[in-house]
């Protein structure tokens, strides 16, 4: 599995990923709708903050926050853990292991390929709404604006690596659904998906260090709040650090899992 061959294979992997995501029309539509929970949360919180701001968040602030969260969620959401456990169960994983492309790359390529098509409707609309309405809550610092995309890319990587690790757990446990559910519950709370992290009160301090923050809240914070320059460093530095940690952890877990898989005979 040389790097050169991997790079050369990427365009084809990407194209097939696109074909896969287009294969089922209805499912495609459902995926667009699935990650719209921020809109529901938005309904709740704007209602709560209707008459007076809630912990310095006005209705407009909430609108900006949840639209930004929706955009980031749409761009970083993936289902690789589910896909991996299915592949292991069905035997397709054995086939993947025989190919000269590392499955991490293969899965990543097909997920990345799906992004433009999954987000083609929701994201542009959300971006327009965001820029149009909640503009008072958005940042205008050009440096931060420039860092938004790299931040989202890092968020995607951390999310992918973490879910890949959970998927690799399927090598060890027969049913990983419970763990995936727990992950999602923790993610919802600590990533800022349910509500801005600051609102969590005493728990917010803990949340600032957990990886979940860097999977969603970090890019959203870049987009919406004002921060000092050194906070920027901590934000991106944290993303880079967690990206490295989750990537390393995922690959180690993967290797252990594959060895076990081969020993047991698949």
């Amino acid at each position: 599995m040389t790097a050169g061959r991997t790079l050369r294979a990427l365009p084809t992997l990407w194209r097939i990923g696109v074909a896969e995501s287009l294969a089922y029309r209805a499912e495609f539509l459902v995926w667009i709708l699935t990650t719209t929970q921020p809109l529901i949360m938005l309904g709740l919180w704007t209602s709560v903050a209707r008459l007076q701001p809630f912990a310095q968040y006005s209705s407009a602030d909430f609108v900006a926050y949840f639209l930004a969260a929706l955009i980031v969620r749409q761009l970083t959401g993936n289902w690789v853990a589910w896909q991996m456990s299915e592949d292991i169960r069905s035997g397709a994983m054995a086939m993947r292991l025989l190919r000269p492309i590392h499955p991490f790359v293969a899965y990543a390529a097909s997920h990345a390929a799906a992004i433009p098509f999954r987000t083609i409707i929701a994201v542009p609309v959300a971006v327009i709404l965001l820029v149009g309405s909640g503009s008072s809550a958005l940042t205008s610092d050009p440096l931060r604006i420039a860092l938004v995309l790299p931040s989202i890319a890092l968020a995607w990587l951390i999310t992918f690596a973490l879910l890949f690790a959970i998927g690799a757990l399927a090598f060890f446990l027969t049913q990983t659904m419970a763990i995936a559910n727990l992950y999602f519950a923790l993610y919802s709370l600590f990533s800022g998906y349910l509500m801005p992290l600051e609102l969590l009160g005493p728990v917010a301090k803990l949340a600032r260090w957990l990886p979940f923050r860097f999977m969603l809240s970090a890019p959203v914070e870049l987009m919406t709040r004002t921060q000092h320059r050194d906070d920027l460093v901590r934000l991106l530095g944290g993303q880079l650090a967690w990206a490295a940690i989750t990537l390393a952890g995922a690959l180690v877990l993967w290797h252990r899992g594959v060895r076990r898989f081969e020993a047991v005979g698949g």
Partner: protein
Amino acid sequence: MIRILRLFALQFRVSAAAAMAYRANFLAEGAMSAAWTVLNLVPLIVVFGQRDEIAPGWDRPSALIVMGYFTGVHAVIEGTISPSLQDLVEKIRSGAFDYVLLKPVDAQAMISASRYQPWRVFDLLAAVAIVVYALIQRGEWPSAADLALGLVLFGAGVLATYALWMVCAAASFWVVRLDNLMFLLGSIFDVARWPVQVFHGVWRTVFTFVIPVAVMTTAPAMALLGRLEATWTLATVAGSLALLALSRVIWRTAIRSYTSASS
């Protein structure tokens, strides 16, 4: 009819046997559902940290009651509705659904309560605990009539939820990969943890009439609190029955399509 009930009982026994077969999983499941219940309470705690009411007339105890109903309905969903319908989706995918059609029992009855997660009964107990705690906090206990109504509407809420899930499961006859749809349902159902009055305008209309998730939990809670007018009670029950009828129609259409009866 009795045969169908006996079938449910047998399927429960069979599922319980399967659940016991994976003992390590039970611990994991128990831990997960405990964690989930706790995590659910966080937004509530956060909001009531700053406010006395989440919406006009909904103070902390009343919101907690809605939460309790939400936990209860969720327990039934995870306890039998979701596992059974996932089994259905799997059967359709593998083709083994043909065997269901070949049995002399109504196919919908066969697949509706075919699988169980027996441990979810603890979630149900947690739901009762939450409601009881909220009533204690409130300091006022419901009358016998309100209690009865609260239970009846819980049943109606469960039936409405079942109907909604059934409609989605029926869609898997046409749409091959359906796990996302169930996930979507789950995240929409999430809204039901809040009283529907929290939402305004379009949202409130949607969650009352289009996807009546909030009514599944808000209406029973209001009944228990003695706040539900008679007309709304009737409307809720009628709505549940209508949803049930709709799900039956959609199911039959799905079967006819599967057997190409319409072509």
